[in-house]
């Protein structure tokens, strides 16, 4: 008894340390994202502009209007968007990996992202302007598309398996993803060169040229989805044992599964709708986090959020400065970084397994 309480307090300390570290890492990443860019703005001005616009604190005068616009209207929302999307994708990825009991699962496995991508591609191809929403039409239609895809996956699963088994959901998701992917390829094939470039660029993912409006559209989905998932950490732990065991533990497996799927899909659909499909975030970050925290979802979920947010902010920073003034698509950076990291994780797993 004594030993376990001592163990608990020292592992508690490690965990607290992890949270503080992740939080600090996130804060520093965000700071770096704000300070460094293709256009250099003096640091005191940056701090002043942000404080002035957010809480009205002002001590400097004569900040040029265009600098204020750069920081407050362009850079700040961009960093925030990267932060939230990184958090959303990592959280959804962790939830999917726990739910599907598959280390290769990522937010795009069950087809929600395909639906969102199709929605966006349709908007780009047909130049749809929904109810005069202008450039807002794209994320709105994309979210609807993601939702529709999810419904189709659910429907397909239900028709084949009353109990909504996870394996069936995965299969249905892959089928829907493949089918929608084919439709997207079809649209790309028949679109003009200009549209094609636009579509492909969009599909590669970006958090730039978005602004506060996109962030405001994204935040509600983020909050609801994150709340759902964070509250289901116990259920995810139980499901890790297998659905039957979870049932025996007293879980209403079917209902909880659907909740978790909906929560993760909200996060994924909104992310893809706003920023395109940025890969390797939802896949790699949860694994990294689990290296330190172990499989307990109580900690994996929030820490994935923090780490994922910092990761994407830094990836975006690299994407927009490394070949400035040109910009690399952010998906390229996350893939170039994520794949080797994933390989290393894989090898470490093998190494541990052998011994």
């Amino acid at each position: 008894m004594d030993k376990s309480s001592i163990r608990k307090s020292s592992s508690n300390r490690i965990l607290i340390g992890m949270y503080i570290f992740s939080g600090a890492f996130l804060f520093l990443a965000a700071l770096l994202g704000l300070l460094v860019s293709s256009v250099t703005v003096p640091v005191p001005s940056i701090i002043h502009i942000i404080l002035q616009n957010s809480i009205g604190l002002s001590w400097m005068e004569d900040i040029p209007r265009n600098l204020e616009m750069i920081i407050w209207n362009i850079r700040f929302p961009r960093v925030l968007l990267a932060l939230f999307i990184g958090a959303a994708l990592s959280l959804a990825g962790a939830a999917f990996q726990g739910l599907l009991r598959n280390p290769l699962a990522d937010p795009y496995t069950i087809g929600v992202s395909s639906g969102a991508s199709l929605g966006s591609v349709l908007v780009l191809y047909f130049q749809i302007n929904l109810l005069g929403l202008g450039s807002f039409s794209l994320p709105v239609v994309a979210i609807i598309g993601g939702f529709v895809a999810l419904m189709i996956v659910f429907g397909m699963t239900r028709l084949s398996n009353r109990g909504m088994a996870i394996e069936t959901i995965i299969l249905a998701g892959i089928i829907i993803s493949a089918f929608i992917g084919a439709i997207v390829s079809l649209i790309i094939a028949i679109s003009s060169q200009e549209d094609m470039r636009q579509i492909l660029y969009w599909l590669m993912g970006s958090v730039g040229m978005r602004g506060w409006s996109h962030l405001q559209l994204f935040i509600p989905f983020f909050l609801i989805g994150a709340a759902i998932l964070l509250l289901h950490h116990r259920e995810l732990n139980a499901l890790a044992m297998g659905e039957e065991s979870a049932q025996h533990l007293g879980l209403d497996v079917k209902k909880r599964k659907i909740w978790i799927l909906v929560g993760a899909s909200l996060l994924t659909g909104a992310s893809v709708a706003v920023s395109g499909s940025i890969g390797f975030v939802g896949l790699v970050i949860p694994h990294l986090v689990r290296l330190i925290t172990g499989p307990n979802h109580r900690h994996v979920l929030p820490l994935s959020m923090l780490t994922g947010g910092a990761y994407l902010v830094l990836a975006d920073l690299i994407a927009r400065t490394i070949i400035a003034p040109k910009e690399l698509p952010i998906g390229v950076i996350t893939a170039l970084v994520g794949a080797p990291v994933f390989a290393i994780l894989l090898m470490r797993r093998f190494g541990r397994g052998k011994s």
Partner: protein
Amino acid sequence: MKLQMSKFSKWASLLFVILMVVAMVAGCGNNAPEVTEPANQGGEVSAPTEKPAVEEPKAEEPKAEEPKAEEPVVQISRPASGEYGWLSNTDGQFPITIIDGSGQEITIEEKPQTIVSVQASHTEISFALGLGEQIVGVSDYCNYPEEALTKEKIGAQEMNVEKIINMMPDLALVTDYHYKNHAAILDQFKEIGINVVVINSADSFAHTYTTIQLIGGVTGTIVKADDIVIDMQQRLAEVIKKAEQVTEVAKVWVEVSPAPDIYTTGSGTFMHEMLEAVGATNAAGHLEGWNKLTEEEIVVLMPDVIVTTYGYYVENPEDGVYARTGWAEVPAIKNKRVYDVDSDTVTRSGPRLIDGVELLGQIIYPEVFK
């Protein structure tokens, strides 16, 4: 015996796996859509829009030198979306008010001292108007004239917004693409005092003339703009006149991207207009806009001349065409009449279009267009 069987089946399955992998790799090799597909780099596609309706010329320029052309001297035509209008006397005096490609009224108070251009054609036009000093930012694809390469790059379809706002130019020339997709950013520009003029993509000579005049008007160089337009119209008229001497009309097949995805320019594109001007027939004239055709469909057309525009990123495009199996009976191949032209002169809606026309004439009918 059991051991021998398992050894055999091991090798058989290994061979099977290798064959599958090879088949998959060969199949996957062609899947990636080529982003560098079309010949032009600056997103200057001539999307099939309807021909702009022609309006009566609002004669604002002092010297109305009548060219020998059939086309009137100065025309303001309405592009497919939005219109360019002149709402003030355009004798070059500021402030001037125009209606730009977004349909909004834009007033420019003073002659712009610093200009940013996000499209290669607008950059070319600006340099031709003598604005080399005023241009401070160009797109990633602006490559003509040479001086453009020395200017600061500010992105293209994806603009480096921070940079542009930091530069605070007096005037930003953007395209309808930016207006449709990033109107919020254009509003941000206007909010901090950058004049934004939306210029729609041009897909015809007439539209190019109005683009040149629009840029001339908003930069205070309308006189030079008129000169350029008149010069282009005159040279085009000469080409059309020479084309009357053509006895045997040649059928020309245009390729803007190499095999296996061969795209051509149908009606409503610059190439089509140019081919008609020099007295040739566009083999793909029955199609509208940019189209992808299969090899069979092309060979059936039996073109007399083949023109490619992708020489800047494919080595020896002519050899590639000559080497195509099954094309031996095509007249263009038999008579060795495959030529590559600089895509910028035939797809970019700027002053060099007229160079493209003359070049095409020399290629297709060398006896007539010496």
